[in-house]
């Protein structure tokens, strides 16, 4: 066997070996059905939210609701705070990225309780301490410099319109249980400067009420009995344990610099996700075997080469996706299934050409070589247009659609390699040293 051919075969075996090597961790992870975040740091095939379940939110930072001078970097600051909150909430592999001018994409895979996640992400959590304007109580109109705020327990209360202190001065917030009714309450601890300010405010307003305002709702308005020097305060309200817990999270992570609005929410439950995996895989497997059998019947032994190429195609697509950290989505599986049909196209083009060359009276070996040669530019042309469409799809699509563009373009590129290089090498290897009159095609 010529050197050249030996090198080619070794190269093909290396590609297969490398692909299998990179796929083993994914295979182990998914076949054991274990939570894949626990996989030991190895790269494995990531599944999209539509397959593993989860929440995708698009948030709009309502910058127009804050004064113009405060708008600098406001979206980035909001993003950081949302990231902190999600980290504290404990979501594995969240994705939080900015999109466009004032949008933030938040992806939370594998979330069990989407509603709570939404609450945590979207909560403004603007904590303020305001002195109650007791003189205005019962007055007809709210005086200048004061505002009327809703009370959590019902009714409203008039407080000064500027905050004496905000949640920015907060160092920590914890849930504790106790008090007269053994209910959960929040215990707050201020930073050093915050504590000094708090001491000054409480010292100057003894016997007045201090309203604790969260997102413009007065949680409680205790009377200041004495100056509080140690920077500690509590928020009592009618919290459930759950509510107290997530309030503590959002308070610790900080208030959002501007309110955020959920403008898109796509939530997929885990059961629907695994259902999609099952159905997509079934379609892929049946499609694969149907095409393989068809190729065997129609092209006989040559069809077997095409089938080997097809199998290798799958390995390469999956391995490249693992290496590149690409995400497999349901439309991605559909793209994979489509590439089964399309990947054989290159071989069909070549085999048809070879048959023609044989019909023209060429010997098998010559026919094979010229078949590959003549089909090459056609294969390239035909695939590039599909790649152009895929590139624009990738550009425009959100998660699932991007997944389609990824598997489709990887499939096309892999098929050019397997159909042109691999099957040609296999022909050469099979036919080497033989003088044959007929070829099974």
């Amino acid at each position, binding site marked *: 066997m010529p050197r050249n051919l030996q090198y080619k075969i070794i190269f093909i075996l290396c590609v297969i070996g490398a692909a299998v090597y990179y796929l083993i961790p994914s295979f182990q992870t998914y076949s054991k059905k274990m939570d894949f975040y626990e996989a030991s740091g190895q790269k494995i095939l990531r599944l999209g939210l539509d397959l593993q379940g989860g929440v995708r939110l698009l948030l709009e930072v309502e910058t127009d609701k804050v004064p113009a001078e405060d708008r600098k970097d406001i979206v980035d600051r909001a993003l950081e705070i949302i990231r902190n909150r999600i980290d504290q909430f404990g979501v594995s592999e969240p994705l939080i990225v900015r999109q466009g001018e004032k949008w933030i994409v938040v992806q939370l895979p594998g979330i069990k309780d989407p509603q709570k996640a939404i609450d945590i992400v979207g909560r403004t959590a603007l904590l303020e301490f305001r002195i109650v304007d007791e003189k205005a109580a019962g007055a007809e109109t709210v005086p200048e410099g004061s505002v009327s705020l809703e009370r959590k327990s019902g009714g409203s209360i008039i407080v000064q319109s500027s905050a004496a202190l905000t949640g920015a001065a907060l160092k920590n917030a914890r849930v504790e249980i106790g008090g007269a009714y053994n209910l959960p309450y929040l215990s707050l601890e201020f930073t050093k400067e915050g504590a000094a300010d708090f001491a000054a405010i409480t010292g100057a307003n003894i016997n007045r009420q201090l309203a604790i305002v969260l997102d413009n709702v007065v949680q409680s308005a205790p009377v200041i009995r004495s100056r509080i020097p140690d920077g500690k305060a509590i928020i009592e309200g009618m919290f459930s344990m759950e509510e107290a817990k997530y309030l503590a999270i959002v308070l610790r992570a900080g208030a959002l610099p501007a309110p955020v609005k959920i403008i898109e929410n796509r939530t997929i439950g885990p*059961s629907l996700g695994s259902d999609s995996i099952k159905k997509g895989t079934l379609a892929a497997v049946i499609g694969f075997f149907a095409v393989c059998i068809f190729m065997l019947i129609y092209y006989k032994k040559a069809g077997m080469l095409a089938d080997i190429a097809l199998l290798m195609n799958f390995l390469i697509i999956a391995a490249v996706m693992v290496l590149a950290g690409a995400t497999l989505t349901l439309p991605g599986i559909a793209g994979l299934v489509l590439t089964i049909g399309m990947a054989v196209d290159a071989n069909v083009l070549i085999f048809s050409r070879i048959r023609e060359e044989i019909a023209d009276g060429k010997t098998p070996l010559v026919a094979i070589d010229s078949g590959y040669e003549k089909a090459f530019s056609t294969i390239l042309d035909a695939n590039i247009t599909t790649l152009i469409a895929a590139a624009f799809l990738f550009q425009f699509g959100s998660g699932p659609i991007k997944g389609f563009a990824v598997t489709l373009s990887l499939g096309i590129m892999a098929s050019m390699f397997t159909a042109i290089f691999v099957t040609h090498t296999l022909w050469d290897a099979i036919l080497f040293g033989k003088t044959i009159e007929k070829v099974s095609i």
Partner: protein
Amino acid sequence: MSLKKDINFIGMRNSAFAVSALLMIFAAISLISGIKWGIDFTGGTVAQLKFEKPADISALRKIFSEYKPVIQEYPGAKTFILKFSQSDEMENLSAAIVEKLKEAYPDNKAEIERFEMVGPVVGDFLKNAAAYAFGGALLGIILYVALRFKGSMWGIAAVAAIIHDVLITFGILVAFGTSVDLIVVTSLLFIAGYSVNDTIVIYDRIRENLRKAQRQETSAIFNSSITQTLSRTLITSLTTVMVVVCLLVFGGEIIHNFAQSLLIGIVVGTYSSVFIASPIVYLKLKK
């Protein structure tokens, strides 16, 4: 499937043009009489509920009467799809649905399997993005074909075939009452790429044969080129149709529309590359 005698495709061009014209008129009418856009583009909310035990659709209508959703029932009466139109309460809708279900079905646990809310701003954004992607992809393919075939008529004919395929597929889908969402637009873009794929293979062969044979009639060259590539055209379409049918039958509800659109597009695309794209080039060349 190697054919000894060439099929007279060029001779059939007038009947083919007539068939295509009819199909395109049909598609245009279907598109003009109203496209059912999905929530991706209009904004709105879709919730897919799954009950443990069968539930009654009219009871569900009553429970959610204040939101007036369109409710669709799956066989087995355990899965329902609720479509809510755009409203101010959208942000809290999922919480409200959970509350109402708990209240109305204390002993039939219901789960929200899928919840998709798209705000109006996002709908507009996606509409624009889809339009740009479509325009960009078409332009890219046209440019490539024009560059590659250094002669505008090849490119124009290929583009005519693309528009033909996408328009007819779109028209048939809309006539079926398919709601047009992101995944349907994706399938149409794919069809644009796929359509030109077949066309190019035939073009390549026509050019090759045009170079080889100088004295033959142009129509004979076209016919023999299409005939020579016919087995490949049919086999590739067949294998692709095979896998798309697998998607349609086994792939589940979420990609049903996608697979359906692909199936129509591939059939139309195969037809157009044989009967439309090449005859147009022929007409231009003959002049």
